[in-house]
């Protein structure tokens, strides 16, 4: 999140990446686990760096040759160090002799999460609307103004139910458990089934409305929210409009979402149908990691 607003806002870095590198973005949570060709290549590269325990995170920025030889590793905030590393790597790079195209011989199905046939992608974004203490720290300012991004997937069967005027239980629970979260400062903690204390979502004449009360057993994290939205369908009952706005008071932290505003703070989450034009539209929902059925059927 901070990288987007600092490192990848730097014009020199962007120019280098576009002109002199092949840039690739991966969720290494998947890649370091994959028992396949891609996973092997990632472990070859990351294994040469400082984060070479594949039971732990390997996150960072890596420069490597087409032969998998690590050239540089960076995990510093800010653009200065990376700018130098990129420039030097680009100037020094010579195509490694004897390197060939890597042929994909194996795909680990467990980590190949694909959009089910006929399903639609709905962009989900969240923003905290206030409550932070004033700060002069530039990194904290970026956190405080951050807008998150995830995708909600809705199956073809769910769309047909919606078109008939019924909110599918799986869809409502999926939205509540996995998408009514504060992911503005990092990976969110989602909700267990038991933490969904109340959930009401209805359709009337194409308009969605409802409420949700989510709270951990110890009461340290929660979200009281109202939902309102509008739907539209084509002649095949496929969603062609999905606008949903969730507004409420959130409190508490997750393991990777520390330093929220104190007390209860206003959180807004929007859902809009993706059209495939955004880089993030093809990314599987965060909560589908490693177990798509657990995401699609959240009561299990």
């Amino acid at each position: 999140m901070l990288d987007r607003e600092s490192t990848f806002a730097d014009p020199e870095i962007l120019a280098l990446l576009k002109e002199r590198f092949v840039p690739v973005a991966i969720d290494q949570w998947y890649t370091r686990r994959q028992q396949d060709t891609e996973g092997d290549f990632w472990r070859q590269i990351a294994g040469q760096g400082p984060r070479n325990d594949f039971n732990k995170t390997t996150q960072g920025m890596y420069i490597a040759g087409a032969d998998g030889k690590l050239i540089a590793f960076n995990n510093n905030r800010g653009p200065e160090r990376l700018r130098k590393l990129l420039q030097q790597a680009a100037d020094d790079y010579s195509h490694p002799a004897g390197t060939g195209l890597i042929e994909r011989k194996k795909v680990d199905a467990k980590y190949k999460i694909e959009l089910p046939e006929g399903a639609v992608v709905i962009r989900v974004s969240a923003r905290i609307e206030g409550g932070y203490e004033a700060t002069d720290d530039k990194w904290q300012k970026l956190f405080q103004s951050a807008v998150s991004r995830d995708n909600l997937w809705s199956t073809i069967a769910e769309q047909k139910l919606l078109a008939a005027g019924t909110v599918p239980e799986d869809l409502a629970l999926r939205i509540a458990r996995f998408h009514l979260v504060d992911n503005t400062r990092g990976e969110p903690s989602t909700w267990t089934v038991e933490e969904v204390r109340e959930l009401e979502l209805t359709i009337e004449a194409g308009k969605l409305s409802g409420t949700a009360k989510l709270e951990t057993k110890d009461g340290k994290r929660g979200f009281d929210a109202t939902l309102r939205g509008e739907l539209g369908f084509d002649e095949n009952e496929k969603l062609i409009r999905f606008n949903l706005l969730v507004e409420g008071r959130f409190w508490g932290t997750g393991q990777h979402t520390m330093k929220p505003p104190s007390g209860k703070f206003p959180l807004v989450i929007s859902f809009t149908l993706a059209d495939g034009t955004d880089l993030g539209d093809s990314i599987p929902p965060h909560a589908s990691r490693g177990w798509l059925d657990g995401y699609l059927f959240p009561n299990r």
Partner: protein
Amino acid sequence: MPIVFCAIAVFAVVFGPPAALYSQDGLVPNLAQQCQAVCQDTTAAWRTVAWQTDLIDAQNVAFEKQQPLFIWAMDGHPLGCT
């Protein structure tokens, strides 16, 4: 866990699917704009880079173009949630 799912399906039963689902009449005033206002800036600089999302595909391109790989590897997908 009191979950209530209601379906207002009278029109669907009597007249077929509600007409409002298929027309502009069902729109909530300004809702689309309010939703859009919360979304990420689609013109942000990092989005102008042609990010690959598969490491093997990227290796093949790097081989063809004789350029090094730059790998942005995160917990959570860099183009998505983190």
